[in-house]
């Protein structure tokens, strides 16, 4: 799912090639983001658009040859003049009198020609790793391979692939090599995958035509330098010093010749817009605000000594799991620090719980891109690849981090509490100078683990993510003032982070404090349980089986399988009653009906049903299964396929508590489910007791920081 959808979409077409554009937001001024087509398209800007569009009006353009634009194969259609005409046509089509241009790589060549020809239409230029011919020095591999562009090279390799014939016939090889070289930063797997996949939406023939087209009517050095000198608008150059496409000297020279500002990002390659999005977003915002004279927003600053202590609580919005434990921690925290102000930066559905509890939701919450909707969109059937879903959430995480950062800076919070708030943890380690206040990181699992279906590549990816996390914490131990593991050391899986990396348990014990599990509720007494059972109308002589798949749309497949087991089980267990809670997003219409089987869209106080029933059948999420462990309810749980957390971390923990019966959805037939229902409904359990002091313990450790 995208972090932000466009407000307007359209095409211009001035020479038979449709060129796609999007408009995001309505602020001022307008910024037009111009990608280095045709090797990429407008999605290259995905980490910047949501943040910039909150302030400015953003126009993105898919350059001809990629994205949703036309795919001409002749070089003439890729001339600089044609690309410049596209820029002007999109300005016209969007009624944009004047814009700031933001261009990457050789798109800056088009940008300066567009400005030279239309000086009144452009108020400033942000040139990211600009590829302006002649300036500074070229990379040697371009100089070496340029003369052989038109030849046919036998078995080309490396930079030799920069050749019309090689690019045309071995497009993927070239693209993979090229972006492999550009992403010099470690842990860039996602940026690499993105860049390659966008490039492959076009073809080698088009890419070669793009290169040939750029050379048509190629200006001489004097002309290019004169154009740069005469731009007469403010410029900002952002350039990685390890850029192997455009030498950093090129960016420096462009800044010098235009009298502009220069930000060199040390250690960065050619794609800082993807690899350093926080830095680039902030640099662009600062520049645009300044040169456009955007007034500072109204704000209030409270003198240090007259501030009350304030906490910003960021509760993970992926499902409802964390909301209840976070509320429980907040309540315990207030007992220890009665004057504490707690604001919540949270999304639906967490905000529903918070509103019901009377908690204060920060108004910026409504700007957040929905992580919950993203995860829902990633699920199919009884399958959710949560590691890849998290990776694909990258643009949402950047967008939401930028909001969090603003809230922290303006709200003068003493402390931020992030319950699996991945964006804060990741981007504060990536941009440690931005940290504000103390930070508490909370999680109930440590370590990304590969699923077998992902093979060697997923092993490599999970190890790379784990390694980055370990390096983050080793380099910047000051980011996490407290790292809280919601559980006990025994809950940690007996695995390693990856080849050559530490054992997860050893490392976690060294870097975390342990609160024990936090259910967020007091387990009911036997008397309460009996009274709930009668209140809910569950008879003494009935065996009640509650089936629930939570509030997500994921789960219809599981419901169908379990319902198919019902008549089979009912034959041997006539007292069986099945209560199916389909949740608000699954329509029970179309599901089979049987005597003794009932459907509910939503039940108030689901936990009472789960506590009072004879058997629960659920997915493999931690919160629900641990609630069942705490109430000592017999249950079957079916982890979602490819969900490493449910299949490894949660299962390991439940095994430790001797709680629940693990079921593998894919290989379990209704007959087997029926047999488990008959065997377990109402049967005694020998679960280990679940802690009840976790929230208080966590609150004590947090309070020590405040």
């Amino acid at each position, binding site marked *: 799912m995208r972090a932000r959808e466009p407000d307007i979409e359209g095409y211009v077409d001035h020479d038979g090639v449709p060129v796609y554009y999007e408009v995001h937001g309505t602020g001022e001024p307008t910024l037009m983001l111009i990608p280095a087509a045709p090797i990429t398209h407008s999605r290259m800007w995905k980490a910047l658009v949501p943040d910039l569009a909150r302030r400015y009006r953003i126009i993105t353009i898919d350059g001809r040859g990629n994205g949703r634009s036309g795919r001409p194969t002749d070089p003439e259609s890729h001339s600089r003049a044609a690309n410049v005409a596209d820029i002007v046509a999109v300005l016209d089509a969007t009624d944009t009198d004047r814009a700031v241009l933001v261009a990457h790589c050789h798109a800056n060549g088009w940008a300066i020609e567009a400005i030279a020809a239309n000086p009144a239409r452009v108020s400033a230029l942000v040139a990211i790793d600009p590829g302006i011919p002649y300036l500074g020095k070229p990379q040697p591999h371009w100089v070496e391979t340029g003369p052989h562009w038109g030849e046919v090279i036998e078995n080309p390799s490396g930079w030799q692939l920069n050749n019309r014939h090689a690019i045309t016939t071995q497009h993927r090889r070239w693209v993979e090599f090229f972006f492999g070289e550009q992403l010099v930063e470690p842990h860039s797997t996602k940026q690499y995958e993105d860049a390659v996949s966008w490039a492959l939406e076009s073809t080698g023939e088009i890419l070669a035509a793009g290169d040939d087209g750029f050379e048509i009517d190629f200006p001489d050095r004097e002309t290019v330098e004169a154009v740069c*000198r005469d731009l*007469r*608008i*403010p*410029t900002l150059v952002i350039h990685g010093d390890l850029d192997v496409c455009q030498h950093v000297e090129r960016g420096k020279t462009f800044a010098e*010749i*235009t*009298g*502009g*500002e220069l930000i060199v990002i040390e250690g960065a390659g050619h794609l800082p817009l993807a690899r350093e999005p926080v830095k680039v977003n902030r640099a662009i915002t600062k520049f645009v*605000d*300044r*040169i*456009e*004279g*955007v*007034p*500072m*927003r*109204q*704000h*209030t*600053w*409270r*003198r240090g*000594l*007259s501030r009350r202590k304030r906490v910003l609580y960021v509760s993970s919005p992926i499902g409802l799991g964390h909301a209840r434990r976070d509320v429980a921690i907040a309540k315990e925290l207030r007992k220890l620090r009665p004057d504490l102000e707690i604001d919540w930066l949270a999304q639906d559905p967490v905000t529903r719980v918070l509103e019901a509890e009377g908690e204060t939701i920060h108004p910026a919450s409504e700007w957040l891109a929905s992580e919950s909707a993203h995860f829902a969109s990633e699920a199919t059937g009884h399958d959710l690849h949560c590691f890849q879903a998290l990776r694909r959430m990258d643009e949402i995480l950047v967008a939401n981090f930028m909001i969090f950062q603003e809230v922290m800076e303006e709200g003068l919070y003493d402390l931020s509490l992030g319950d699996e708030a991945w964006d804060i943890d990741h981007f504060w380690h990536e941009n440690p100078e931005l940290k504000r206040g103390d930070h508490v990181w909370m999680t109930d699992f440590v370590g990304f683990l590969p699923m077998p279906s992902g093979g060697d590549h997923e092993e490599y990816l999970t190890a790379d993510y784990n390694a980055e996390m370990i390096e983050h914490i080793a380099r910047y131990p000051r980011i996490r003032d407290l790292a809280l593991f919601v559980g006990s050391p025994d809950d940690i899986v007996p695995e390693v982070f990856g080849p050559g990396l530490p054992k997860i348990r050893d490392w976690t014990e060294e870097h975390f404090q342990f609160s024990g599990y936090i259910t967020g509720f007091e387990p009911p007494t036997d008397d309460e349980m009996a009274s709930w059972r009668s209140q809910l109308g569950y008879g003494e002589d009935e065996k009640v089986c509650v089936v629930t798949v939570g509030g997500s749309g994921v789960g219809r497949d599981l419901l169908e399988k379990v319902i198919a087991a019902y008549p089979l089980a009912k034959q041997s267990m006539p007292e069986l009653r099945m209560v199916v809670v389909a949740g608000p997003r699954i329509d029970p219409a179309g599901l089979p009906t049987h005597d003794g089987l009932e459907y509910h869209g939503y039940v108030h106080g689901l936990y009472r049903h789960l506590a009072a029933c004879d058997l629960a059948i659920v997915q493999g999420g931690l919160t629900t299964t641990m609630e069942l462990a705490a109430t000592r309810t017999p249950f079957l749980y079916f982890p979602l396929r490819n969900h490493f957390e449910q299949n490894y971390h949660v299962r390991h923990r439940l095994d430790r508590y001797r709680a629940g019966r693990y079921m593998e959805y894919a290989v379990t037939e209704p007959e087997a489910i029926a047999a488990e229902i008959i065997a377990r409904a109402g049967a005694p359990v020998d679960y280990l007791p679940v802690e009840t002091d976790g929230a208080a313990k966590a609150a004590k450790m947090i309070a020590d920081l405040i």
Partner: protein
Amino acid sequence: MRARHPDSEGFVESEGLSIGYEVFGGGDVTLLLLPTWTIIHSRFWKLQVPYLARHFRVITYDGPGNGRSDRTVEPQMYSLAAQTSHAIDVMDATDTAEAVLVSLSMGSMWSLMLAANQPDRVLGQVFIGPSLPITPPAAARAGIEDAFWAEQIAPQGWDKYNAHYWQTNYEDFAEFFFSECFPESHSTKQREDCVGWAMETTSEVLVAKARVDDVNHETVVDWCRRVTSPALVIHGDDDRISPLSRARRLAEATGGSLVTVQGGGHIPLARDPVLVNLLIKDFADRLPGRQKTPA
């Protein structure tokens, strides 16, 4: 020892008076830090000058009646017209075609009048604790101008704002006044500094200044209407000299930004210098067209 000494200093003849000015640093943009009520002089900018001068050209001068400027007791030398002339004369003497005006308290009136009447010389305005009749004064200070000339016996509080009392108890008044200016706890040094600067002038000077008629509400509103350059207003919500409502109205009327200092008094530039320094720099950096374009 001063944290930063001026790079040049001098005196300019203005309306027949000698006005002492100082220039610090260099840069494309000049900040003119205006004087305020002459009970204190240009040293009240001491926490701003060293920082701002690293980024901008900064000019300060002493208003008539204090610092290195003449201690005239001629009331007209303290009039609006005279005060704005002093500012323009200092700008001319330092070859300053245009500047950002930064003012404290009643300096806001001279800043506004200049920005309205000579817009080509004003790049923008920063108002700190502006005191001007754009909304009514604080309740505790209502009517003090009327009681100013009346003889009083053992006045307390704002009744000490009194020409007769000053003749014999000027220092006591200064101590009272600056304790009102700094309601923030732990402000001993800031109060001492201000009282010390107050002792460099005399009650006669302040009485002379008090004989000048204040500007009226309509004029201030008209100035605001005519201002075209950006504005920033910084104001404490515990300002006991000039209420926060004035800052709000001034920001509205000039289309400017407002920063409220919660728990702050009348002189945040002394009590919260880091905040004020960063805000002034940010404001000056955001002036339209700040980046130099090549010739």
